């Protein structure tokens, strides 16, 4: 490795004792998550050249669930991310300084790196009554989000709350909570919904940016296609039981003890687009349906209102393997939500990205 690599992400990893083999393993995992055929080589090449970009992480009306998810990162680990891959310059939960010193860290990035830094937003932003329902250091969340996201290269809204308001925005939405997309317009935004988002998809988004110099292609709701392009129902390991009409009917019954389909227990897999069955959780250990509990549709729009009651089965889907009907439900929901979101102008982001991709080619 020559001098050209000095100070790059790969150099930094190498100095921290990461072997070439482990580095390539990480690149392969990322290539697989991003569904890039023969992508590992290109990722490796890019990481060998990239300097560490700054990232600031803002928390508003949140439970730190996405922060916890971030700490579970495995390939690369959170240690590698914060020491080697990114310069995580502001993150209230895990940063060393507090108070004025902490605010200085944020100000330094916003002032000195305008247009170059990434922002992750966790939590919703309340707009009602002048934003009094969420202030940090006496400043309303809405003012911070406008300033910090407005000057960023790109913003990643992580989790359901930062996407569309999540649980604070659930009916009756007492604080007027919204997600980033409705709080600040005209920014480059990637949405990673979920409760919480899976850290694999955050890492893959960042690596996509570092590798290709652009953000991943998104759907009409600003969600990366690599993570939100496939219906849970279609990748589900219990799908054969659905098709064969073998359903769990009570928790702990014979079907439950034999891994049958959870549709009748309220599983929202037929209406939810997310890569849980493929990437799973916690280093591929499990995911809700494997662990015996249906999907609650946490990556779906306004899921607290639209997907509850969580334990009632989806309407109008006859029970016994009527494949086309379940598909229709999925398509119907997707079309309806796409239409709703187009009205919010999010489609713009996709067009923008598509054009970028075209230019690159």
């Amino acid at each position: 490795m020559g001098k050209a690599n000095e100070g790059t992400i790969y150099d930094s990893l190498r100095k921290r004792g990461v072997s070439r083999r482990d580095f390539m393993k990480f690149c392969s995992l990322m290539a697989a998550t991003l569904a890039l055929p023969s992508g590992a080589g290109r990722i490796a090449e890019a990481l060998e050249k990239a300097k560490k970009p700054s990232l600031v992480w803002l928390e508003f009306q949140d439970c730190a669930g996405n922060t916890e998810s971030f700490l579970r990162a495995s390939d690369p680990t959170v240690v590698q991310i914060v020491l080697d891959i990114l310069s995580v310059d502001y993150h209230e939960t895990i940063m060393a300084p507090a108070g004025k010193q902490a605010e200085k860290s944020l100000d330094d990035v916003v002032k000195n790196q305008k247009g170059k830094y990434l922002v992750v937003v966790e939590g919703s932003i309340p707009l009602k009554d002048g934003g009094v329902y969420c202030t940090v250091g006496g400043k309303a969340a809405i003012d911070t989000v406008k300033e910090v996201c407005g000057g960023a290269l790109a913003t990643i809204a992580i989790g359901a709350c930062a996407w569309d308001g999540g649980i604070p925005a659930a009916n009756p939405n007492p604080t007027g909570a919204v997600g980033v997309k409705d709080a600040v317009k005209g920014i480059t935004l990637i949405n990673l919904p979920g409760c919480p988002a899976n850290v694999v998809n955050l890492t893959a988004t960042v690596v996509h940016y570092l590798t290709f110099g652009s953000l991943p292609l998104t759907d009409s709701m600003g969600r990366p296609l690599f993570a939100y392009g496939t219906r849970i129902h279609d990748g589900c390991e219990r799908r054969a039981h659905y098709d064969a009409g073998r359903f769990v009917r009570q928790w702990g019954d014979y079907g439950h003890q034999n891994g049958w389909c959870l549709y009748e227990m309220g599983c929202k897999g037929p209406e939810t687009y997310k890569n849980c069955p493929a990437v799973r959780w916690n280093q591929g250990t499990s995911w809700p349906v494997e662990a015996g509990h249906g999907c609650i549709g946490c990556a779906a729009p306004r899921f607290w209102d639209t997907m509850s009651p969580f334990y009632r089965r989806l309407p109008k889907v006859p029970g016994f393997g009527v494949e086309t009907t379940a598909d229709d439900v999925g398509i119907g929901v997707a079309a309806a939500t796409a239409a709703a979101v187009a009205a919010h102008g999010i489609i713009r982001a996709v067009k923008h990205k598509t054009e970028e991709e075209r230019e690159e080619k």
Partner: protein
Amino acid sequence: MRAVENALGITIPDNARLIRNLITGIQYVQDHTIHFYHLHGLDWVDIVSALKADPAKTSALAQSISDWHNSSTVYFKGVQDKLKSFVAGGQLGLYANGYWGHPAYKLPPEANLMAVAHYLEALDWQKDVIRMHAILGSKNPHAQTYLVGGMAAALNPNNEMTINAHSIAKMQQMANTAKEFVEKVYVPDLLAIASFYKEWAGYGAGVGNFLAYGEFPKDDISNTDNLFLPRGIILGKNLGKVYPVDQAKITEYVTHSWYEYKEGNNASKNPFEGVTDYKYTGPKPPFEFLDTEKKYSWVKSPRYDNHPMEVGPLARMLVAYASGHPRVKEVVGMVLKKLAVGPEALFSTLGRTAARGIETLVVAEMLPVWIGQLAGNMKKGDLRIHDNSKWEPSSWPKEAKGYGFHEAPRGALCHWVRIKDGKVENYQCVVPSTWNASPRDAKDQRGPYEQALLGTPVAIPDQPLEILRTVHSFDPCMACAVHITDANRRELLKIKIV
């Protein structure tokens, strides 16, 4: 969930009890360790000082307190080299603008280097041991498996989609890894670091009243005398008497909180009759100050029999200690002996941080036991995980009410529910940080954070590291602000604690 089970009179199967104990147990072990190293550690550990350490002396120090395998000179030299290269890169990220070099940091460079190495190791360790949540509850964070009446983790030794022998083996592995790290790294580090900060046994005492609902039922939860960590109340730092807990004595004030009671600002309400009608009366943002003579918090002021109460690991360990819990008494005794202090030292910032470590060890030791009991039930053919009898709302009485106690890692948590016509009529939660962070009540009594900060020395007013130590020792579930003023109430600075 426990509140609804209590309201409807549901007894969960023994396997569901064990699975809940395991999910909560590994959560304590992982969460407390993260708190110690990653959320509280840098209040005591100066990373920059670690650059000056002699790795050979660090190795000798590490080997003198533990037989943990990562302890060679080469290992610590490697950690130090990584740290040097990180600092040389000039992008300090999370560690920029810290209070490095502050005179309140007392550890020698070697101890700082050892702690930094373990800070990094713990970050890798925590993600592995918490996979037990994924096995039993699908994912972490936000396990998706809790049901009214039991759990959704199906048991069957003869199926690949369920908890089977392989799952049990994996969990035993994780439990052992968890326990070993606590025994060989966390607890020895805690004792080593505490020995340099013994004056902190004299600061941060707080209100001196402690509430623990108790946790880890050994049989049905309605048998509240049979919890692994016992239930009880300690008043006025008196370890000679443990009072029983009566939920009816819990009330909440909104005197200084942005809520309204129609009975007025001095009223208090039991959560069964609780009301959460918000009304913000503070300044318009952006603002610098909150007027603490008026309402100044989103947190209500819960009180037990009108006493402010501290909750959390210290409360649980004190109640267990005073109740004669054999293992807790033994570990507390060991810690006090090693630090050469008496039990009165527990009522402090240092005591709070030590209690968290003591609890981590005591709970980590139980994980293999509960996994063994779960396997034992499966061996006998007991695969029950859920009581279905009240699953359908049509089977419920027209009206019901109940409360559900839980000890979260941060402390006592309770939910109160009233059900009418198959729907929730009122739901109120009093969570750990509500107790600890509560503002003053109608009698002007301070909550635990506020009380604990009285008398804390601050060496450099615009770098109030000491304030962070005490507030962080509670493991706050929130950001909060402390304003430091001089005797004339001129503000010197405001510090947001995150």
